[in-house]
């Protein structure tokens, strides 16, 4: 019997698959709720007048405004849009870059820690810029040392058996990035008005670590706050305070040999240095609760006059000034070595952040244009003025050009050849460094073994690390180049 299909039959059949429809509707709803892909098409749609839109990643949130100012000037000149995206904190950024490298979703331009860009280059994530960029215009101590793979750097990799084959395969002389931000750590900053109140000469920086302690004692004796460093960050006590002082105490070559495990670290000078560091606690020269202060809070503490001394780098100075502290009230000086130091030197500028074009960029030619503009005198000056940080481009120490705080930093570096310490082993390797970090934190809180025992344990740990790394052989000696 022929049967006519009615509307109600169709409806019944359709409602029979109700769960399927519900599922489909839910899926569709879910898909619409997904975040939009921020690909080039989406960016172009947002900026219809631009022919090309580039994306740049950085992890320095306070640099974003600086880069945006440079991007605006770049767009006015070329019509190319550069979208600046900042991801903070550092560990999140590192993880994001790792993930994007593996999924091939890196932005056109990537900011990365100077020295660490080689890992990305070895993974094939960066465009080879050899022959496309040059050292011209960059400050001494930046491009030639950090962006070009030098023979010395490559030799140091070869000497280390743990270096990956991919890293060793990178050709000497090649360039994968350009320096964008320069500076130097190991600066100390005294509050001048507090020095004056303590009867100190506010224009005279302490020449030795002992003098530094004496000055701090006078300041705290006058009822003023002491030293606030970012002790919560375990890198700060060794990297910013102890090591830069100790390298002057024994000289750079002896220092490298000791940190490399070729000469004993458990020597009287090192123990004396640890004792001096310990005295900051025993004389109660740290501000209370210093172990729980991180980098930014330490700067805030100093800017709010709740500490008389801060330690950091050129970037710290910029941060303090942007927090509203009068730069004229800050006495900037290098971390001093202990009395009887073998060497005394001034820190030179070196590259801190590199900028690279990634292999995932769809517009490498335009990205190269941006790289050149952002590191040009015009772009860098704009960045310096807006972000209050020191570009790696050679700039005049003129407040009108770079802003007052950066002009002051530029003056500090004037005449410097731009070498930092030239030391390859600035801290002991592997777990020996972890032990040093712990020891210094213990000295800050007034706990732990005696400094003698600390030095001995550190030496033992360093020997164990080296024995494993070099399979019982001595580590190869690194000749530290002379300071220019």
């Amino acid at each position, binding site marked *: 019997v022929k049967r006519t299909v009615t509307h109600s039959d169709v409806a019944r059949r359709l409602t029979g698959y109700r*769960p*399927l429809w519900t*599922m489909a509707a839910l*899926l569709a709803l*879910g898909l619409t709720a997904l975040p939009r892909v921020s690909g080039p098409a989406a960016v172009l749609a947002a900026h219809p007048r631009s022919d090309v839109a580039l994306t740049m990643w950085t992890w320095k949130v306070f640099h974003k405004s600086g880069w945006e100012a440079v991007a605006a000037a770049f767009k006015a000149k070329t019509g190319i849009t550069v979208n600046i995206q900042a991801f903070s904190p*550092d*560990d*999140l950024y*590192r*993880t994001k870059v*790792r993930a994007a*490298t*593996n999924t091939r979703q890196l932005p056109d331009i990537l900011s990365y820690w100077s020295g*660490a860009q080689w*890992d*990305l280059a*070895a*993974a*094939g*994530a960066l465009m080879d810029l050899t022959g496309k960029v040059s050292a011209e215009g960059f400050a001494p101590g930046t491009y030639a040392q950090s962006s070009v793979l030098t023979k010395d750097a490559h030799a140091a990799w070869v000497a280390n058996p*743990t*270096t*990956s084959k*991919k*890293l060793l395969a990178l050709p000497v002389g090649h360039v994968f990035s350009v320096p964008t931000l320069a500076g130097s750590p190991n600066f100390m900053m005294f509050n001048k008005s507090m020095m004056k109140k303590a009867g100190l000469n506010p224009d005279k920086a302490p020449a030795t670590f002992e003098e530094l302690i004496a000055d701090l004692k006078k300041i705290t004796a006058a009822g003023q706050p002491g030293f606030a460093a970012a*002790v*919560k*960050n*375990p890198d700060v006590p060794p990297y910013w305070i102890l090591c830069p002082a100790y390298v002057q105490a024994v000289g750079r070559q002896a220092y490298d040999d000791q940190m490399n495990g070729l000469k004993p670290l458990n020597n009287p000078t090192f123990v004396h240095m640890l004792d001096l560091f310990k005295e900051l606690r025993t004389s*109660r020269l740290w501000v*209370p*609760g*210093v*172990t*729980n202060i*991180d980098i930014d809070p330490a700067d805030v503490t100093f800017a709010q006059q709740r500490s008389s001394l801060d330690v950091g780098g050129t970037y710290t100075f910029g941060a303090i000034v942007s927090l509203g502290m009068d730069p004229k009230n800050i006495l900037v000086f290098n971390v001093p070595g202990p009395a009887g130091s073998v060497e005394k030197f001034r820190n030179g500028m070196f590259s801190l952040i590199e900028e690279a074009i990634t292999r995932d960029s769809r517009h490498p030619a335009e990205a190269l244009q941006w790289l050149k503009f952002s590191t040009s005198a015009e772009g860098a000056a704009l960045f310096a003025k807006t972000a209050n940080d020191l570009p790696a481009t050679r700039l005049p120490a003129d407040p009108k050009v770079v802003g007052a705080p950066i002009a002051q930093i530029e003056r500090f570096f004037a005449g410097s050849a731009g070498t930092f310490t030239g030391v390859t082993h600035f801290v002991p390797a*592997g*777990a*020996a460094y*972890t*032990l040093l970090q*712990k020891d210094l*934190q*213990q000295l*800050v*809180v007034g*706990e*732990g073994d005696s400094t003698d025992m600390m030095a001995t344990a550190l030496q*033992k*740990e360093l020997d*164990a*690390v080296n024995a*494993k790394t070099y399979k019982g052989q001595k580590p190869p000696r690194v000749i530290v180049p002379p300071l220019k």
Partner: protein
Amino acid sequence: MKSWPARATSTVPGARALRRSRRRRLPPRWWVGYLFMAPALLLFLVLGAYCVTFSFALSFFQWDGFSTSWRWVGLDNFAYFLYGDPATAQLFRDSLLHNIEIAAIVPISSCLVGLALALLLNRSGRVSRLFRTLYYLPAITAGVATLYTWQLIYQPGGVLSALLTALRLPTLVPYDGWLGTPSLALPAVMVVMIWSSAPGAMLMYLAGLQTLDKEVLDAAAMDGAGAWPRLRHIIWPLLFPITVILMILGMDVAIQDYGTVYLMTNGGPAGATSLVGLLVFQHATQMGGTDTGLGLGSAMGWTLFLFTFVLAMVNLRLFRARA
């Protein structure tokens, strides 16, 4: 040569009928349930199972996080932090000990505080409802902001110092604050953990109390049982299954959670609050590069998992036996 009959089962008499009857027994639209499960299952397979397998494999390799090649190191990553490197092994042991301390103290304290609050609030009335909401607030507001608030409470010159000074007890105020003094930092962090987990326990106990048979409690009261005997001999045994769940979940969280410590002390001062989870995080995200970070972090994570798994099994056995 002996030939095996193809599809031998099909020759068995009645087999087809049996299959047909089974098929017939399937309810209409039996696949709907599977369909609704599919997205979650797919999500787990893509995100959960993939990550777990990836991390497990990684614990036997060295990887810089960028390149496509991994270097096989076998059990070296495990050996490194268990005994191979003295400083790292010491740090790992200290961290594991801190984890054990937290796992032993935080869940028990949370249960005790939660039960006490639930008993106090197990009555009707507006005031009671208001307090229920107030006491539950830490559970819904616990996050980065509250951890920073606790930092302000603990810091030198903070709320706690001011309170003790006002009570004429300045000698109890530590020079470096509670989080800056190694012997006090971990207990201070545990107080925060208890503060944030007790409301959850309170809610579960409160729900349990409201399902208790009132007649049993009334009968006990009529027999002359006071509040304490009723709690000890009636309420506590009846709420024991809830305690089991709370203890197992609490221990799991106490061992896995490192966010509180990361934000409040970053494992310091001098490693006084370091936890295995925090070490995993630090190795996996901070060292990186050519270092052994990712593989080492994964190996540490799997060791912690093994520890948690054994602990959970022991707990489950013990509590089940008692329940």
